[in-house]
Every structure is written in structure tokens, then in C-alpha cells.
């Protein structure tokens, strides 16, 4: 994917020079191995700073929330899906954006550059779903990947084993909130964890509070999560919190035939009602 960067710079420079946009949101070279830093370029002469490689894990849609100016944004498949979410949820308007699409071949695992990041390995939408410019030819989408293998493994467990699995999963969580802050879906002005009237959740490190935080946050992402993996990429403790969101993603897919962020023309399932919505969970 390193070869994309020439084209990305060329497009960015043109957009800045002709005044189409005021800034370009992309990545610049990081100061430590296997990391790049999201950046905003406002001068055409600075486009040289832009980079693109397998370490652009964060989701750049997260940096668009509520912005007012005209922006060019570099978007891999998942970023573009979150941009679609943002447009549906009125966090940014389509007219403000020039989307520079990146046909993505997957990010590498931040701890092991030999393998793809877990969500990338099973990604079905590597190509941007919405874009104005492309920095390369579209790539072939992966086929015959089993997206929900992990979910089914847990589904097959006994209740107590499930409980223990998640207990173990969350060990080490310090509630630094990197996962929710890296998540483009988590833009609420006041997160439920910060509410005091009522206070939904204790603020300490009790495992119950930690679990409540993670699963409630996951619910808030139901039908919206694109499995971009930014949460896991951001976690300093390497917690695999996608085990929560994947289950919801699978259910949304199976119950409503829904995948988040594919089109701006359809309302998400938790935001709409159909007479044939499944209701097996209602007794």
C-alpha cells in the first residue's frame, strides 16, 4: 500500500491548491515503530508529511465529528463506512467532504507486523463504500472468510464459562477509555460513564463496573459498529473488546440483514421499525 502515497499526496495537493478543501485529514509518520499519527494538513507544501502504510489503524472518521470546514479525508473501507454513519447521524455533511478512497489491503497487528489485525483478516469491505477520488484501483474483496467464528465459539459455551471468558477478557482494563475515544461512534457530549444524575456505573476498578462499561458501550454501538478495530488498536492493555461488538454485529446481520455504514440511503435497524422485525426475544 506504500505505493498509494504518491497519488494521495498528488490529490491532496491539488485539493488544497485549488481551494476545494481547507484541510486534509490523514496520517503522518509516527515516532515509534508500527505507529502513525493522525494529522491535519492545511498547506499544500505540507502534503509531503502524509504517509500511508499498514499502520494507519485509527479510524479517521473520528476526527471529523462536528467539524465545520471543507475537509478532504483519506478513507480506507472501514473509515468510509464510519463516514457514512456520520452522515446518517448528522455529525458531518456529505457536502463538506472530499473522500480520498483507499482500497485497503488490511492493517497489520500492532504487536505483530507479520499478521493482519484481527478485524482486517475477516474484513469484507476493504474498498471504500463512498468516495470522490481513489488513490489506486479497487482491490478484490476477501471471500469465504468466517467473520463470526469467535462469536460462535462463545455462543457454544455454558453460561458460567461465558461469564469467566469475559472476566478474563477484561482483566487489565484501567478504564482509560482509549477504546471509546478512538471509536468514531462514541461522540456523545456526555458519555453515560460520566453521568452523575443518575450515576449508571461506579467509577472504580471493580470488575462489575468495568464489565458494565464495556457491554453498555457495545450496546450503544449496536447496528452502527463497522468492526473497524480502532478500539482494539487503541487499547494499551491489548484487550479484545470486539468480542462484545462482534456479537451485536452478528445479531444485526442475522436478524435484520444489516451491515452498518454501507449506504447513506437506508436508516439503521435500531432507528426504524418494520412490521416483520423479528420479535422472538419478547415473551
Amino acid at each position: 500500500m506504500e505505493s498509494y502515497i504518491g497519488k494521495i499526496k498528488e490529490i491532496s495537493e491539488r485539493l488544497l491548491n485549488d481551494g476545494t478543501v481547507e484541510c486534509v485529514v490523514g496520517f503522518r509518520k509516527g515516532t515509534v515503530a508500527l505507529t502513525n499519527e493522525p494529522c491535519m494538513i492545511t498547506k499544500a507544501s505540507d502534503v509531503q508529511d502524509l504517509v500511508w502504510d499498514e499502520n494507519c489503524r485509527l479510524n479517521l472518521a473520528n476526527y471529523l465529528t462536528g467539524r465545520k470546514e471543507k475537509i478532504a479525508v483519506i478513507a480506507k473501507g472501514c473509515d468510509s463506512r464510519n463516514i457514512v454513519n456520520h452522515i446518517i447521524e448528522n455529525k458531518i455533511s456529505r457536502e463538506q467532504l472530499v473522500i480520498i478512497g483507499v482500497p485497503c489491503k488490511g492493517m497489520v497487528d500492532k504487536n505483530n507486523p507479520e499478521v493482519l489485525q484481527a478485524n482486517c483478516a475477516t474484513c469484507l469491505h476493504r474498498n471504500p463504500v463512498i468516495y470522490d477520488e481513489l488513490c489506486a484501483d479497487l482491490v478484490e474483496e476477501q471471500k469465504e472468510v468466517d467473520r463470526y467464528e469467535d462469536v460462535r465459539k462463545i455462543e457454544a459455551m455454558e453460561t458460567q464459562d461465558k461469564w469467566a471468558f469475559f472476566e478474563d477478557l477484561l482483566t487489565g482494563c484501567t478504564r482509560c477509555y482509549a477504546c471509546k475515544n478512538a471509536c468514531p461512534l462514541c461522540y456523545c457530549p456526555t458519555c453515560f460513564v460520566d453521568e452523575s444524575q443518575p450515576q449508571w456505573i461506579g467509577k472504580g476498578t471493580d470488575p462489575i463496573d468495568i464489565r458494565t462499561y464495556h457491554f453498555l458501550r457495545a450496546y450503544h454501538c449496536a447496528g452502527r459498529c463497522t468492526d473497524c478495530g480502532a478500539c482494539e488498536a487503541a487499547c494499551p492493555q491489548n484487550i479484545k473488546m470486539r468480542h462484545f461488538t462482534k456479537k451485536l454485529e452478528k445479531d444485526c446481520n442475522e436478524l435484520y440483514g444489516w451491515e452498518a455504514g454501507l449506504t447513506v440511503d437506508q436508516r439503521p435497524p435500531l432507528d426504524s421499525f418494520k412490521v416483520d422485525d423479528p420479535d422472538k426475544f419478547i415473551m
Partner: protein
Amino acid sequence: MKVIKIDKNIWAGGIDSLRSGYRLFGPVMQGDAHEYKELTSDETPDMAYTNTRLSPKSVVFPQSEPMFTYSLDENNPEHHILKDAPKDYSPRAVIGMRPCDAKALSLVRMNFDTEEYRDPFWMNSYDATTFVGLACDSPCETCFCTSAGCGPYHEEGFDVLLSDCGDAYEAKALTEKGEKLLAAAGWTAEGDASVFEPKKAEAEAKIVCKVESSNLRGKNSLDLYDAPFWKELSFACINCGTCTYACPTCWCFDIQDENKGTEGVRMRNWDSCMTSLFTLHGSGHNPRDQKHQRFRQRFMHKLKYFVDKYDKGLMCVGCGRCVQQCPANIDIRTICNKMNGYEAAS
């Protein structure tokens, strides 16, 4: 100052001897990384660790800690009156701590031990602890301790400093507390004090990453505060608490009451200047409502306010944890250099 040689074949035995007199804490493998924790009776500290994700500050300053208990039951004659939470301040020891983390605690101590007030929770834990350091012979690439008033053989804050000499440790007892611990472990063989200097020089030479901070003291705080770079530098920051929780010199905390039925605990929990709730007024006004304001606060505090307030250098020991763990690659080294080099337009 006494130097004791500890043959590695008597190391584990010595640790076992310490268990009766001390609660032991040390680095052990937890999942995919080393972390400090209280050792169970069958655990020994893993001295081969490189660096822990979280610092051992939690030994004296746990992330969540009860301060008081109370009863809300009006039939209880002492209802709504704060009672001291049960605490264990019996002797404890941290085995295998890095010099940067020990220096960090001595910096943090200045916050908790002041002329006017003494924080009893932090101070009692600190006073109860014997700190046994392990000098750092193979630093990480993000380490910049030698630029932050510290170093791989820095002794500040330790009671004992160990240097790994292959099949033995040379242990330098730096305080009476340290001597007492060595004796309690049964380590008595006379050591060789001369190994420390050359090993120190060798280790320091390995730290190639340098950060410039010499100008910070002389800068005008308002100039730095108003410097034009804060918005740009903070762009990538997602305002999570990773850096503040990983940082050995971050001490901010929150106080919360947690009730269960009619019983409750007043707790204190680590807090982070990165969150907007940290400074939100009751009126809804927030002096640090925006990301770059919180970002600026963190770096100004570490690299300027602290420097001015105590004249003890930076509130950073160069451990590199924030650099390694930041999800958005915010790098204190870059920011420190930038602040250090900043000249306000006159």
C-alpha cells in the same frame, strides 16, 4: 554504603525469607506483558522483565482505594459519620523496580507531603514500603531517562539498588531500610562496589534518545501557554487516559462515594486531566472544555508548572510509557523539544 553480593542460586530463598516480614510486590507476567502486583506465596518477581505497561505507583497509590466507610442506616448511632477504612500499612517491599519509577515516586511525594497537609493514604503506604531497584542494563528505544534528570543507575527513591552481574546481583544498600531488608533476606556476602560505575556508564551510553529541556525553566509560562502550536500538536490526541494512567508521575485523583444498601465507602480513584469532566463546574462552565486545552494542561503541568513550582526539574522521568502506549502517537519528547525551543514573537 554497604554492597552485598547475592548469588542467583540463593535469590529465591532470600525472597522466601522476606515473605514473613513483608508484603512483596514485583513484576510478573500477566497475560502478554509484565505488571506489578502483590506476589502470592508461590510467585517470585520476574527480574528478566523489560518494562511494565503500568508503573508500580499503584503499590503506594492504587487505582481505586477506600478512604472511609460510613453507614446510612439511621438506626446506627454513628450513621453518616466517616470512619477510617481498614488499611494494612504493615511493611511491604517492591522488588525489581526501575530507577525511573522510583524517582517518579519521590517527585510525586512532593505533592502528597506538604507543609500544610500530609496525605495519610499515600504517605503511610510510601513509608511502609522498602524499594528494591533493579538497574536498567538494556533500556527500551523509547527511554529518555538521562534527559529527564534520571538514569539507568539513578538511586533516588531506592532503599536498595541491584545490578545484574550474570550469576549474581550486586546490591547496594542505600538506606537503613534497605540494609534491614537485605539482612532479613539472609543476604550477607560482601559485594563489589566497583561494578556500579562502569556498568552505569555503559548503560547510560545505550540511551541514545535525547530530549532538550534546559530552556524550560527560563521561559515565560504565559508565552508557552499562548504558543501557537497547541491545536496542531493535539490534533491526533483522542483525550483518553492512557498516558496519565501509565505515567509514574501522574497523581491526580477523584473522590467518589459508593453505596451498597445502607453501607458505603468513600473511594478515591485515579483521574485524568484528559477528560472534560475533570474540570467541569457545577454551573456547566468548563475552563478546559476543548481538547487542546486539556492537552496543553498535561504538558504544561509536567514540563513547566511543576518545574516552576518545585525547581526540581521535570515532572517526567523519561520512562517512555506514554510514548509507547499512546493510541495516537502523541510523543512527549517531540512536545518537550518544541516547548524548549519556542521563542514567543516579541
